[in-house]
């Protein structure tokens, strides 16, 4: 198969839970080096799309290609940041240890992490501004700090394409700024980032590529072409009437509303 320059290509993907489709016939093309948001209402299948792309949930039909090859052959290229709520943070371990987990494949079976790997993990913690918390038991970190530890764990994998499930959910402003700065750095280094996002009013500020999802794929492309009131209306139903023609949100009141709808 020849390289078509796409970081991620999804063809005719359908995912069903108990025969009830959660994703219908998704076609998606994401070029390399973009920072893409997946946006859509609750139950739109945003997390499922990521999980199906990573092979964590089985597809009823369709195909996922990462850098032009099936996912199973490309796992080394992929980094994953799960939802923060998906693990028990009372697990007996510290922040550095969690980041080290990102290197386990590289370290290999049976062998233990050594100093070099520890240094890499520290460096990664440093990138997300968490170096001071390396020894902290993870339950003693704030939500935003936990999210940054998860990000550091994915960074240390040095992947080419990152899938992130709601990295901005429930984090403080400091963390949001830190995360978006890291994401931009990664994109500028040529990596591809695919991010499930909730907050409509930061979409055009943070991202340069967008997928609007509501069981079907409503739109997929550069942010300027896709972030339109027409597309949003199709994605969210009639509930986004306050968005003006050019897709901008006119005032603070509707900003709050947009958050409410997207939340």
């Amino acid at each position, binding site marked *: 198969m020849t390289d078509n320059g796409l970081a991620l290509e999804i063809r005719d993907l359908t995912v069903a839970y108990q025969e009830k489709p959660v994703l219908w016939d998704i076609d998606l093309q994401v070029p390399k080096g973009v920072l893409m948001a997946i946006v859509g209402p609750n139950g739109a299948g945003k997390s499922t799309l990521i999980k199906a792309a990573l092979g964590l949930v089985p597809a009823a039909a369709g195909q996922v290609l990462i850098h032009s090859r099936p996912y199973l052959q490309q*796992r080394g290229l992929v980094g994953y940041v799960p939802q923060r709520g998906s693990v028990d943070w009372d697990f007996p*371990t510290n922040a550095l240890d969690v980041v080290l987990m990102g290197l386990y494949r590289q370290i290999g079976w049976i062998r233990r992490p050594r100093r070099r790997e520890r240094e890499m993990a520290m460096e990664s913690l440093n990138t997300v501004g968490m170096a001071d918390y390396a020894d902290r*038991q993870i339950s003693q970190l704030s939500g935003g700090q936990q999210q940054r530890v998860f990000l550091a764990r994915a960074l240390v994998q040095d992947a080419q394409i990152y899938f992130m499930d709601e990295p901005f959910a429930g984090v403080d402003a400091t963390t949001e700024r830190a995360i978006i700065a890291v994401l931009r750095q990664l994109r500028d280094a040529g990596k591809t980032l695919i991010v499930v996002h909730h907050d409509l009013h930061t979409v055009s500020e943070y991202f340069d590529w967008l997928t609007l999802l509501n069981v079907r794929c409503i739109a997929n492309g550069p942010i300027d072409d896709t972030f339109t009131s027409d597309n949003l209306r199709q994605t969210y139903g009639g509930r986004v009437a306050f968005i003006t023609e050019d897709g901008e949100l006119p005032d603070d009141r509707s900003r709050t509303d947009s958050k409410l709808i997207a939340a």
Partner: protein
Amino acid sequence: MLGNILYDLLFDYTLRTVALGTAALGLTSGILGSFAVLRKQSLLGDAIAHAALPGVALAFLLTGSRDPLLLVLGAALAGWLGALFVMGVTRQTRIKQDAALGVVLSVFFGFGMVLLTIIQRMPTASKAGLDRFLFGQAATLLARDVLTTAGLGSIAVTIVILLWKEFKLLSFDPAYTQSMGYPVQRLDVLLTTLTVIAIVVGLQTVGVVLMSAMLVAPAAAARQWTNRLEPMVLLSGTFGALVGVLGAITSAQVAQLPTGPTIVLYMSGVVLVSLMIAPERGVVAQLRRRRRQRVQFAAEVLTIHLLNHESGTNAEFETAIVHLQQHLQWDKEFAQRVTRWIVTNGLAERTDGHLRLTAYGRETARRAMTH
């Protein structure tokens, strides 16, 4: 008395054998139990233990042999089947894990009891002594029983040591583990199989009814004392081995005392003490912390109160220590404690019956208000 016990432990052949056996099973179940607890599979252990009973009975019925390895094998197969059944049902159907556990536990155990009754009625097999699998009887442990326990236990523990990273990752974040390309399902089945081994080697000594306590209790106690996985697993294994030996000794000293309940009673003691007095996570430490936080918060409230009334017309009245109780509606003892705290921490000074904020106290109050 203590000297005698120590002497027996070293030189009494029977007691030494039994103690070695219970130590080996305590160590194994303590180590594997840590993972079971962290993976929220405490109850799976209970289902496995109960599900193992028909395996023991069937192994005996089919072969007529009482060879420990054979009975343990039968127990392992049945326990494993039960575990796979629970995992399969949970994954494939809408039935939740607790329901699947309940069904497996009672159906397998009931079937096992039926088989035991049949065996007991058989004239030739009446002395099979399989009923010791219910509550455990350490006194009947023979050298080859101990060898079976120790042998299987060391295999299980060795695999845990070799796959330490992978099991840790799997226990903490299975989805991420899978995204990295690990064969998660196979690792999951392997770890569960090791748990099954840890359980079945203890059945003869502790019994199916109480075996899950040997899995869960040491881990729960060990978690109290540390925030790292390595020390937790080590400590859990140590607790298991220790109460195993203690239970064996006691059970040997007192006639007709079943080993399982004795060991579990000791283990409960360890858990209770750990729950109460462990630093940080213990109940006592938590109560103390909560009390300190209450005083700390009250001190902040008091600095704000003092700041607000510092320059007012009724400042003299509002800052008088005797009036504090009235204004802030604190009882006398609490008000005194807060006053003491605020003075010793340099937030305010006590001068002729009044509290006056220091510069540091003013700063603290302002910071507290802007939060």
